């Protein structure tokens, strides 16, 4: 009933290859955008922004990035925490070295720097695959964290070894620093999420996406039809790291305000991102959002239910929360190995016929 294609004739290839070919889908997408840009900034409060919305948006960018690498190009990476750190430290250095330049550009340049670092650590992917590649990207994770810990230049020789973001403004509104208002920070991140998602979608539905997926599905056949595996894999690493770098920059500068590399961008972060991508659905932009939402919202929801709803002591709840999340992830992956995106796809197939399935 909702996702009906009947009567919706495509007469050009442009119509046929658009992101949301079904009318209902397209309007729903416009509605989500309208609410995100037009309604939420006015009703946002600190708790919602810091507990749910900001981390969700930022993790969504990182998950999109990792999904391009793991889901589309089939190269497993456990280095995403390290790449986020590159983005964070790059913005920090840029913000402190060039205070006159708008932070918007700092974040993008930080993404670019992360892309270069990503390509460098992507080089082993030309020789090794699968688990072995995962291990070699783990080396990137450890090396980068060590680097940012040990070389004082990266944290401007501060005594604590921490980096903290100075106040920077966009159109006169503070985005970073203690005076930043929540709705500004939210909008700033939202702009990046929207642009990232659109770019990722455009890349994955076109020639680059086909090159990546060809390498993922069967690298030998991909090479035979003319895909240069070196170029395909390295562009995947570059684009993926670009987004992860932007996410790292936003995570540090806008969300946290200050960071210490080992705590913030450790292996835990790498695994968290990988879980988001797997739970959300490999090879799906929507899945990246769904996975990020799942892992950001679930702990908040559980905390509210256990502490506020059932009146458990906070520390007991905190421990059980981890157990419950772990259990849910396992149950979920057994029930639907292809992630939330697949559930969504199945639901759409069903909705096309509803309420007359025969």
């Amino acid at each position, binding site marked *: 009933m909702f996702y009906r294609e009947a009567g919706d004739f495509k007469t050009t290839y*442009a119509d046929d290859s658009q992101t949301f070919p079904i009318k209902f889908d397209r309007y729903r997408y416009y509605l989500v955008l309208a609410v995100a840009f037009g309604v939420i900034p006015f009703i946002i409060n600190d708790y919602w922004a810091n507990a749910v919305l900001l981390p969700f948006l930022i993790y969504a960018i990182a998950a999109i990035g990792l999904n391009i690498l793991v889901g589309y190009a089939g190269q497993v990476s456990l280095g995403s925490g390290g790449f986020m750190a590159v983005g964070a430290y790059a913005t920090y250095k840029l913000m402190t070295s060039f205070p006159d330049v708008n932070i918007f550009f700092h974040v993008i340049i930080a993404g670019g720097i992360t892309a270069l670092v990503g390509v460098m650590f992507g080089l082993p992917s030309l020789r090794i695959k699968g688990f072995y590649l995962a291990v070699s990207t783990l080396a990137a994770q450890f090396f980068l964290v060590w680097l940012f810990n040990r070389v004082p230049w990266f944290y401007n020789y501060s005594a604590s070894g921490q980096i903290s973001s100075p106040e920077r403004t966009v159109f006169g509104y503070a985005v970073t620093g203690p005076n930043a208002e929540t709705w500004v920070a939210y909008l700033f991140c939202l702009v990046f999420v929207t642009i990232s998602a659109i770019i990722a979608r455009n890349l994955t539905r*076109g*020639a680059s996406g086909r090159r990546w997926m060809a390498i993922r*599905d069967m690298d030998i*056949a991909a*090479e*035979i*039809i*003319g*895909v240069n595996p070196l170029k395909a894999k390295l562009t995947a690493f570059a684009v993926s790291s670009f987004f992860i770098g932007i996410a790292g920059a936003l995570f540090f500068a806008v969300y946290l305000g200050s960071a210490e590399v080992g705590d913030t961008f450790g292996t835990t972060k790498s695994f968290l991102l990988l879980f988001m991508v797997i739970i959300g659905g490999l090879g799906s932009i929507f899945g990246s959002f769904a996975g990020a939402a799942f892992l950001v919202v679930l702990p908040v929801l559980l905390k509210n239910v256990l502490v506020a709803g059932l009146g458990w002591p906070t520390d007991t709840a905190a421990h059980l929360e981890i157990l419950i999340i772990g259990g849910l992830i396992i149950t979920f992956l057994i029930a639907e190995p292809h992630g939330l995106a697949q559930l969504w796809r199945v639901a759409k197939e069903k909705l096309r016929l509803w309420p007359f399935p025969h």
Partner: protein
Amino acid sequence: MSDNSQDISQGGYTTVDGRKIGGVMMEMKNITLRFGGVVAISDISFNIHEGEIRAIIGPNGAGKSSMLNVISGFYNPQEGEVWFHGAKRPNMRPYQVAEQGIARTFQNIALFEGMSVLDNVMTGRLTKMKSGMFAQALWKGKAEQEEFENREVVEKIIDFLEIQAIRKTPVARLPYGLKKRVELARALAAEPKLLLLDEPMAGMNVEEKEDMSRFILDVNDEFGTTIALIEHDMGVVMDLSDRVVVMDYGRKIGDGTPAEVLANQDVIDAYLGVSHD
């Protein structure tokens, strides 16, 4: 061994059914391919003319697939030369060979299972898509234009192979026979000068074989594509091909028109065995 190959080694010739065949397109000169101590191909020379259907046959393990892999750049032979369009080809990676206009299908289907039929066939056009990352990211200008131009070519091939109805179906859901056809579509999408088919009829029933034979002949006829194929079904080989190379244990034991090859004593021995009494 037949002398026919000498007669027509350089210029064109006319086939039994009256088709005009062009000059030599690809020439394999004294190819030897070894894997460690195993000699897969030993000192084989043959050529492929422009516009002909050339079959490579032989018992299992004769080195036919290895030969195809040499042509498509998977293996670089230890000895011998590959000449393509009158120029000696240096050692190349498979994707460089693809850029030269050589496409192939595989014995065990090698489609991209996670993609739709349309996307799979579109991958065949990747060598023609040169737009940069930035244009692609914005889906504007050259990237968009390229996408739709190539889509148009792909749609023609989808029509040609009669797979319109499954255009948007994920490949993993298709039955075997259709997968084979999609793989042919992907190879054709590259508009190759030389099309290599590794056992295009393997595992098919008679009807599917007839369909596939018709497609192969149509491709050769309508697009003028030169075809080299490996096949075990002798009936199909003899009906389709203009000239046949026969291999056994990595050596060439026969070369010529189907009729000549069938009359060749070495070929008969290889296929039926030799009596020792």
